[in-house]
């Protein structure tokens, strides 16, 4: 597998501009001759689909929900970063770039991150023009707040629903192009296969989830904007439908999968409460601006939180990280919570939780002041837990939230399969080993509005139209494969539900490849995954038929891919014997139990290549160069 990152040289602030100039252009009159498939309708997919259509390409957009507006970008709460420096607090493109590289624990590509920081400002302009009702100051200008891990206020927000508002903006742009006849939507349609012929992506095979019909779609380029794979852990903050199938299928067709072990565990989620639980609910980490995190000093202290006097409380983040306190980056906060719980000081009935206490904030700001800032989050917490967080400290626990790993892409956002692009959370490019708060929205929209529309033109101008249509044997083969898989799943007629396998897999990964990973735990997981897989294909029960809406069948197909994918996730975690960002290897920590990187051996992106069913995948590396941000041990003390 050849990994040519195509990263430009020269002064970093000029790289993207110079590069854009070198890209080949498609003549305006020729754009309408190109068909582009976009899979996914979240921030990345919708913004890309809309922009490509505006440029004149014919876009077909596929998504499994009933409307593009439901993609899980909608659930992002906190905000979106941009280097506007409207606050005059010393922010700049360079600082955003630097913070992102550092926050990612020096495991991201500098050129990509700089470009991201550079276009971040255009995103805000674009969204404002679309009518996104960002929060405003009384003077009418855009308001900002600070967000976990940043020391400037660069986060733009729309109450606690920033993701929703940005997605509705992108959705509206997409729908205006539907109206213009340049975008065709395929709702309730799931991508099952990527079709590659003669070394180029030619289209996809999909299943219409309402009729069960398996269909081929040929195009000149395929864009995967299919999000992350956090649901491999079963319990995560992702939507129930989020899955790895599209990305994993592309991997099987030759796309390198980069850094699958980089998963972000978000520190402020509502703790698990029972076996039947279907998902975890995140609460914006903006809560950490005013909430104080603590656990009892004593082990096994079962007193009610308000009965525990101040001097018997351990405000562990404030003590260990005096300069950042409760605002340390996500990976650090999550690990510290896990440590406290491992020591037997966790709270709640399961012992898996820490307190996030607003007692001081209520005293300082009054209940109304707190309500003004966090009312909707408190409301949500109360609805789920039936506890009043104004009176009783919230209980929180980390949960899988975001996956920094994804399909490997070059500077053009193209995977190792020519013509197959990956954008947003589906690719691996910008966040390194840990993503900073409010950066996911930024990356999704940067890719879709401002990067891919340029780079895809170069590919199309160079490669021309695809000559392979859906009658080609590659398509019929892919259709047969996809249909065969559906038949196989339906034909097992065993005893266990797809969800029961998913739960088993998720628990295995969470226990062995979650917030802390060791050689031992990872090997244990690797030994167990094939057993799960074996039982899955022998004892699965899928009711109903393939020719109708069949949610059990959909789940089964996704779980099958999760099981296969879990293996490369664990293998990647095993091979990376250093700790970095969200990937914490117990064997690699400093004396103060902080993550310890090993730059000599691991300053690279690990890229996995599929070698065939039953064969071990091959690990490749793309060396990372740091010319501007000199890697140092991250310290938030």
């Amino acid at each position, binding site marked *: 597998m050849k990994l040519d990152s195509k990263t430009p040289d020269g002064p970093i602030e000029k790289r993207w501009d110079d590069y854009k100039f070198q890209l080949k252009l498609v003549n305006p009159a020729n754009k309408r001759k190109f068909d582009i498939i976009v899979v996914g309708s979240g921030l990345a997919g919708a913004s890309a689909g809309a922009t490509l259509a505006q440029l004149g390409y014919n876009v077909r957009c596929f998504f499994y929900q*009933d409307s593009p507006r439901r993609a899980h970008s909608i*659930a992002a709460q906190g905000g979106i970063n941009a280097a506007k420096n409207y606050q005059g607090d010393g922010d700049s493109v360079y600082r955003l770039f630097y913070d992102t590289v550092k926050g990612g624990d020096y495991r991201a590509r500098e050129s990509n991150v700089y470009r991201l920081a550079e276009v971040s400002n255009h995103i*805000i302009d674009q969204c*404002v023009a679309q*009518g996104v009702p960002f929060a*405003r100051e009384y003077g009418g200008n*855009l308001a900002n707040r600070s967000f976990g891990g940043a020391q400037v206020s660069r986060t733009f927000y729309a109450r606690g629903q920033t993701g929703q508002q940005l997605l509705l903006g992108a959705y509206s742009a997409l*729908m205006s192009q539907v109206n213009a006849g340049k975008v065709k939507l395929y709702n309730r349609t799931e991508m099952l296969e990527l079709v590659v012929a003669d070394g180029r992506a030619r289209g996809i095979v999909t299943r219409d989830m309402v009729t069960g019909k398996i269909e081929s779609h040929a195009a000149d380029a395929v864009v995967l904007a299919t999000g992350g794979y956090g649901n491999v852990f079963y319990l995560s903050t992702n939507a129930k439908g989020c899955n790895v199938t599209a990305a994993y299928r592309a991997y099987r067709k030759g796309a390198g999968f980069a850094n699958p072990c980089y998963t972000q565990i978000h520190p402020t989620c509502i703790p698990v409460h029972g076996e039947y639980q279907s998902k975890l609910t995140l609460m914006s980490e903006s809560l950490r601006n005013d909430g104080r995190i603590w656990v009892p000093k004593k082990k096994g202290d079962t007193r009610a939180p308000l009965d525990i006097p101040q001097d018997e409380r351990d405000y562990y983040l404030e003590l260990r990280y005096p300069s950042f306190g409760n605002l340390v980056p996500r990976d650090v906060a999550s690990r510290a919570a896990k440590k406290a719980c491992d020591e037997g000081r966790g709270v709640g009935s399961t012992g898996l939780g820490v307190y996030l206490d607003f007692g001081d904030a209520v005293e300082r700001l009054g209940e109304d002041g707190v309500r003004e800032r966090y009312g909707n989050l408190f409301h949500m917490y109360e609805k789920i837990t039936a506890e009043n967080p104004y009176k009783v400290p919230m209980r929180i626990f980390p949960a899988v939230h975001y996956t920094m790993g994804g399909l490997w892409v070059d500077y053009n956002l193209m995977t190792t399969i020519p013509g197959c692009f990956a954008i947003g959370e589906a690719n691996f490019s910008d966040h390194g080993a840990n993503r900073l708060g409010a950066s996911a929205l930024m990356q999704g929209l940067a890719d879709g509005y401002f990067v891919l529309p340029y780079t895809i033109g170069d590919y199309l101008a160079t490669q021309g139209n695809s000559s392979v249509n859906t009658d080609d044997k590659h398509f019929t083969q892919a259709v047969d494969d996809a249909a065969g898989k559906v038949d196989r799943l339906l034909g097992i007629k065993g005893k266990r539900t797809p969800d029961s396998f998913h739960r088993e897999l998720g628990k295995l990964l969470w226990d062995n490849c979650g917030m802390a990973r060791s050689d031992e735990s990872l090997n244990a997981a690797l030994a167990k995954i094939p057993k799960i897989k074996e039982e899955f294909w022998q004892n699965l029960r899928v009711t109903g038929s393939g020719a109708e809406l069949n949610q059990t069948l959909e789940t089964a197909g996704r779980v099958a891919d999760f099981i296969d994918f879990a293996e490369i996730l664990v293998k990647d975690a095993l091979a990376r014997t250093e700790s970095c960002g969200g990937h914490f290897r117990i064997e690699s920590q400093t004396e103060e139990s902080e993550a310890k990187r090993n730059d000599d051996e691991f300053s690279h992106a690990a890229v996995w290549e599929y070698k065939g069913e039953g064969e071990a995948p091959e690990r490749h590396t793309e060396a990372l160069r740091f010319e501007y941000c000199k890697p140092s041990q991250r310290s938030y003390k």
Partner: protein
Amino acid sequence: MDFTLKVWRQKPGTQGKLVTYEAKGISSDASFLEMLDVVNERLIEKNEEPIAFDHDCREGICGMCGCVVNGYAHGHQGGTTLCQLHMREFSDGSVIYVEPWRAKAFPVIKDLVVNRSAFDAIITAGGYISIRSGSAPDGNAMPIAKETADAAMDVAECIGCGACVAACPNASAMLFTSAKITQLALLPQGQAERMTRAQRMVRAMEAAGFGACTNHGECEAACPKEISMDNIARLNREFIGSSIKK
């Protein structure tokens, strides 16, 4: 907790009916959808087809879920989507009716799953500000009063779940349509297309086969985001104004 469910089951192209299921031993901390998950798992174990229902984010924001529970869209708790409704809100041993959104414009696909593409059609007709990517002026070039931005945000919160239509005695989509029209009419960015937007969106709404608003206010009561029916008056005003000016 134990419940008796009366759930609407309907296969494509056939007449549906209410079927009774026992849901025993449900945790009071389970959400309504988690309760359905448990029922479904047990159905699969008995080799029966599980109940099809739409859901995705399960945190009240995607708008995918929604059923009429005991006669209320998203259940009886105010300002709540079905995924955020918890079983502790029901009394032990109670009978719970679960029906799909019912409207001609939202045909049933299967069981509790309905087709809400009509909402997309309304937005497609004009629920946007046309702006080419990359051609926007600076975000602070046009100051917008905080009150205006807040008012726009109040309506922009709509999640497009369809509860307003489901709860409306007339199956009208006026609250949904008015929320988008209001958001864009309030903001200075939305002025250029304001007249055509009102015309096109209302006509798309009519074409989809929704009923007429007769100001019952059930939409506002059912709306999980508590969007006010005052917006419907604004829609009417926008439509009348644009009809005169066009």
